[in-house]
């Protein structure tokens, strides 16, 4: 199972971290060892878990809204060539704007609460999902569309049975990118202006030179992001069940 390998890798990295800190004798306010960080995590667990919850709500809400918006945008563009002509340039141009630069503006407009962070996450998730889903929809096998036409299929059934399923692999790769990047959006939003969340906690811990707390928050965020990524990956693999036949051959080696 992939989890055992992950655990082994994680344990290995922790071990290396410990060795590095012991050998180099680096001061604890630059790089604390894994044990002080672990201790800090356990000591501050009640506070940390509250902040974790806030950040995770921001990420998940952003993920859901961003995915829905991205899919709607892609479907609109594929259904209406007229609208597509206007939306596609906007989509392309907006990808060029560094989303993180918008963080202060979002905090200004939406405040210190959850809304601005969710908006950040939505912005980061929307683009990869919309563009990969759209291009997936466009790359439907033209012979399949020809077959559907000859069978006298309407637009809706062609979309439902042929175009959307064939675009699912592309959508999945876009979503995987989005899920990997989504936590960044939430955390950056928290750095710019917030009163809760792991990003906020890290910033304040850093300001007070409580580096072990900072690393504890970072470790927690990393673990949470990994769990999120693998959960989404699992769901996507279930969704795109027809491609698992290939992976079954690899699984025999595991």
């Amino acid at each position, binding site marked *: 199972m992939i989890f055992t390998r992950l655990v082994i890798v994680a344990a290995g990295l922790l071990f290396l971290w410990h060795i590095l800190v012991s050998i180099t004798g680096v001061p604890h306010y630059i790089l604390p060892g894994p044990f002080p960080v672990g201790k800090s995590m356990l000591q501050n667990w009640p506070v940390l878990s509250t902040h974790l919850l806030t950040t995770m709500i921001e990420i998940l809400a952003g993920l859901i809204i961003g995915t829905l918006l991205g899919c709607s945008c892609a479907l609109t563009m594929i259904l209406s060539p007229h609208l597509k002509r206007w939306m596609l340039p906007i989509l392309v141009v907006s990808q060029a704007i560094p989303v993180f630069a918008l963080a202060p503006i979002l905090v200004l407009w939406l405040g210190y609460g959850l809304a601005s962070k969710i908006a950040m996450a939505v912005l980061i998730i929307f683009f990869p999902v919309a563009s990969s889903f759209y291009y997936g929809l466009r790359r439907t*096998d033209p*012979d*399949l569309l*020809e*077959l*559907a*036409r*000859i*069978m*006298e*299929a*309407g637009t809706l*059934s*062609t979309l439902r*049975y*042929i175009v959307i*399923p064939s675009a699912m692999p592309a959508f999945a790769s876009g979503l995987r990118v989005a899920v990997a990047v989504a936590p960044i959006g939430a955390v950056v939003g928290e750095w710019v202006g917030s009163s809760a969340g792991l990003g906020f906690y890290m910033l304040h811990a850093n300001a007070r030179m409580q580096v072990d707390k900072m690393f504890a928050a970072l470790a927690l965020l990393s673990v949470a992001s990994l769990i999120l990524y693998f959960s989404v990956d699992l769901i996507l693999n279930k969704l795109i*069940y*027809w*491609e698992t*036949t*290939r992976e079954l051959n690899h699984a025999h080696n595991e």
Partner: protein
Amino acid sequence: MIVPAHARKPDGLDAVSIVLDNVSLSFAGTVIFENLSLQVEGGKCTCLLGPSGCGKSTLLKMISGNTSIHYQGSISFSPRSRRGNMTAWMSQNDLLLPWMDVENNVLLGAKLRFKRDSHQRQQAAKFLTEAGLGEHATSLPAVLSGGMRQRVALLRTLMEDRPILLMDEPFSALDALTRIKLQNMAAQMTRGKTVLLVTHDPMEALRLGDKILVMAGNPAKVTAIFEPGGTTPRNADDGSVGKQYPLLLSKLLEQ
């Protein structure tokens, strides 16, 4: 021996013929067809034999009603026995949807038209058994071999129950033995329907064609017509196959 469960009697009453009258088509400066007139006889299998790229596939698309090909002249069906599309189409690519199981792929037409019912499902099950695919009804296409997939594609085409079958090199991607088996199956199951089969294999044309139209040239024209006689599928030891194969081959090679 596959016994077709639903074959129409080849008495010509149900059979629909295709009439092309002075069809011309140009694309990007090249003239593909110029005043092409031909007739595809109802209830028989007509093979369009010719080299790749001469326009045979385009002709099939035109007959199937593709609105993005703007040609002059007329393509008509006689009689026009149903409203809507008179044709069912099958290509070299089996076009099976990987996310649907075999039964649903066979029933694809009905699904797309939101008209799937128990009668259709029974018919599909009957077809699958006839074709030797009964136990694969719930399998996904990915586990099937190329020959099995093309069999499913043939069944899907037959399920459409249209008077005209357009087949665009349906067996050319298969190995020789699978191809022969599938040709036999196709000949049995499409008996009585009007079939227009595009192929570049003269042997396939001789095995399956009641009439063979050799098509070549630029713009494409029918340069020869062969009528081998007898019933399809003809085997390699059939006299007419042996006699006409070299003639056909030389006709093709001289283009």
